[in-house]
């Protein structure tokens, strides 16, 4: 998957969690939680959805790497290269 495709997957998952989320004005370098109505359970939703779609296991120790959209993409790029 390309970087843009991965970015779109993450945004699509967030949209599915909260269809009122303002993704248009999202700053990709800032923490998602500071900009969107997301809590820890929502992040677990993101992790679960990635697991369901791409069979990737994200260990709890790596959760901080999902803090921003950019860090999500950086973290997922090598893991979804073949997807």
């Amino acid at each position, binding site marked *: 998957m390309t970087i843009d495709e991965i970015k779109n997957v993450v945004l699509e998952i967030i949209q599915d*969690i*909260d*269809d*009122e989320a303002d993704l248009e004005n999202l700053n990709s370098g800032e923490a998602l939680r500071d900009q969107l*109505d997301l809590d820890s*359970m929502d992040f*677990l*939703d993101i992790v*679960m959805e990635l*697991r*369901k779609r791409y069979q990737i*296991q994200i260990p709890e120790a790596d959760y901080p790497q999902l803090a921003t959209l950019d860090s999500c993409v950086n973290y997922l790029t090598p893991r979804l290269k073949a997807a």
Partner: protein
Amino acid sequence: MPQLSEDQRIVITGVGLASPNADNLQDYRSNLLAGQSGISEMELRYIGKVPAGLCTFPETKYRKKKENKRGTRAGCLGVYVANEAMQDAGLDGFSQYAQNRTGVYIGLTEHGTVETENEIYNLSQFEYNTDFWSHHHNPRTVLNNPAGEITMNLGISGPHYSIGGACAAGNAAVIQGAQMLKLGEVDMALAGGISESTGSFGIFASFKAEGALGVHQDPTKACRPFDTGRNGIVVSEGACVFVMERLDKALARNCRIYGELVGYAMNSDARDFVLPYGPRQAECMQLALDRAGLKPEDIDIINTHATGTKQGDIEECNAIRSLFKNCPHTYVNNTKSIIGHAMGAAGVLELAGNLPAFADNQVHPTINVDTLDPECALPNLVTNEPRQLETVKTILNNSFGMVGINSVVIVKKMTST
């Protein structure tokens, strides 16, 4: 009624509801008087098409779609009816009672069944690998879930919990709310019942296995208590919450009072897992009458529990006959024939549907009684058309459940204090 001080007298001052045929009390009452069934047909996983009562209401009126997805159907129903009840009572915004002095008591027949079935179905899509089991399972299935979702939505920091009482649970929650008010534990109680049971194939399948699932070519005719053609229960979702408060406070704020909870009782059959037992139901009604200081002939309307099963309906009719045999002015009706069996919400939804009788003096009909079972032929059974009475001052509401649990509440019209 035994003389009680006003701070020991409990009144209902708000009603919020979601029924298969309405999402507010006014429409609900109109549809009950018109005998407008709320039963339709639904397609359910594994079991196929079944008659059921499904609710239509503005689900995002009081919380976001995101929160509805996070929570349970029971929570979604609960948040709607609790907010509606508060508004109906003129208490939205907690202007009169503090959030930490408000209690939420919700009757449930079961909870967690729907969520567990959904999770197992989800797991089956992933070869039963438990890595795919949802982190939402625990908060969705804890038994306080629906009551807790209400407190989160309304910022209520007083006590909340569920009352597990099978199909007697709604009335049981009202009783719990009244007791907490009398004890001074809370100043306002949001008490009622919720059912999300239509989401569970297992509930339908189990009733079917017991030979107790109501079916009919026309789903609106599937629920037919007291009729010779009855063949079982029609499962419905639904919810109803009452605002309950002490009479002195209600009078002080000069609010509308739907009625006073003058009598209530609960007891146990102590006999059988599923079969009801009329003699104990009669004892429960008598206990409620005693608490209210009323005689059987003082009751204007008996709203029956009858679900449309062969034995259950007869047991209740026998119980009513034994107590009300000399009561020519006591009328009997049944709400389930119109809305199905809303399980944990049944008692309160059915009571709510009859409370407006204090204003319009009508007894809503029991529908689908084409051929009355002689064993259910109670005098003054109101069938198929509403009955206009001169006055309605007292309603006795029955609600019974599996494993032998009985609950009865008696509500009296407020005339003067």
